[in-house]
């Protein structure tokens, strides 16, 4: 991927900025401009809290080109507190046993690197909530 491809997603990658539908109030991430629930325009930006829980997870052993140096890594589907689902790597797991339903929160981490002189791509990952309420 090229620099502009990542740059124009900076609000999503660094801030988890999605949308809220002005008609039916459903929260949308990733942003898609047309509400998936009511089909009307939904371009109002909405900042997600970054909190959610693990819906499913898998550890990748055989990584695609561009992600090989991070393998093995764990990817999860996360149900955000506001409703939508997001796909992201899990990080800072330590020796914690992973399970469905585990509360997680967003952090910013390096997603991939493209060689010594190439681009570093940063974005959201999720980690176990440090101090669950």
């Amino acid at each position, binding site marked *: 991927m090229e620099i502009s491809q990542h740059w124009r997603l900076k609000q999503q990658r660094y801030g988890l900025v999605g949308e809220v539908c002005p008609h039916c109030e459903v929260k949308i991430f990733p942003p898609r401009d047309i509400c998936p629930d009511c089909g009307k325009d939904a371009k109002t930006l909405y900042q997600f809290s970054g909190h959610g829980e693990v819906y499913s997870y898998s550890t*990748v052993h055989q*990584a695609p*080109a561009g992600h090989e140096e991070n393998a093995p890594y764990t990817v999860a*589907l996360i149900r955000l507190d506001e409703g*939508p689902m997001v796909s992201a*790597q899990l990080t800072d797991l330590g020796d914690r046993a992973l399970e469905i339903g585990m509360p997680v929160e967003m952090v910013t981490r390096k997603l991939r690197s493209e060689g010594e002189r190439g681009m570093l791509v940063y974005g959201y990952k999720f980690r176990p909530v440090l101090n669950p309420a």
Partner: protein
Amino acid sequence: MTNNKNFSHDIVILGVGMTPVGEHWDLSIRELALEAIAAARSEAPDVLPEAFYAANMLAPALSGQSQLGALLADFAGLRGIEAMSIESAGASGGLALRQAFLGIKSGLLKSALVVGVEKVTDRVGPQVDAALATMTDADYEAVQGITPTTQAALMMRRYLHEYDAPDDALAGFSINAHANAVSNPLAMFKRAIKIEQYKKSPMVSDPINMFDAAPLADGAAAILLTRSDSVPADFNKPLVKIIASAVSSNALALHDQPDPLVISTAEASAKSAYRQADVQPEDIDLFELHDQFTILSALSLEAAGFAQKGEGWKLAADGAIHREGRIPICTFGGSKARGETGGSTGVTQVVEVVRQLQGLAGENQVKNAKIGMAQCLGGIGATAATHILAV
């Protein structure tokens, strides 16, 4: 919604052909395609197709080649023909057949040739995985290191969790596919496996192990179609008709599915196909579903109405999917053991259904097969194409 009964002519199959599936180091993409095309055309040598549809998934990424429609048509000696390439990942083959169906149904074409071809072994693992990742959502999935295998793994873990199924609940799909491939001379893996091997198999992307995932390999398949009023007088095989053709699409990303455990496109296209053909799931004698991962077999059976939600895995456990069972699937080994050929899979499945309905399936024959269904999926189901054929 299309209703075939509104049209006067049935679409019939005049010829089918396919290559062995495997590692074809000595064959290029055009040679693979030609082998399948020549086999299909040899079954009705006097019919000159009026349009050419080439289904493929990865040629631009792995072979540095686009415009397969023109390339393969020219190489097959069909210079000047209306030709195009069709790409919708693993659903490409079904979509190409759909285009041929539409073209002939419209009355503008009298005959058409569909070829599916995939050439993957010229590149090695991580490059192929990166190419496969392009069928996920590039901005929100692939960037996180997700491939279709990861998507399927996320579905499988949730499935086993939500329905409280045992760890080896899906093993039966892999075992059935391998058992059926033993007698298929074109299959990549002609050997049976046992549950012990499944259980000991290394993880690819847990809980998906090596036997839950189909091997991606080289192969091609082709189908020659025409209208029922244009069948050559000397055609001497049982005439197979396409009695339903349906396609549905949805979001690429798993996180964008309203329910990640429902392949909504498989459900929608199957329902549409049943309506067109005026049949029920219990009328289907065999179902070539897209078993790229065992979890997709379970979910495809549920989507097509053969099992309740969360119970598709039980059809593997109780033998209903065997060749002698209630709903035989992957009768020549499926993607798991015959081998997965990406954009060609949807064509290969229909070739296999045609052989079953013609009664030419040899040791793999499903007894009294009269109505067969084929369904292929793009990725984990962003696109689905369903065809029902009858003899």
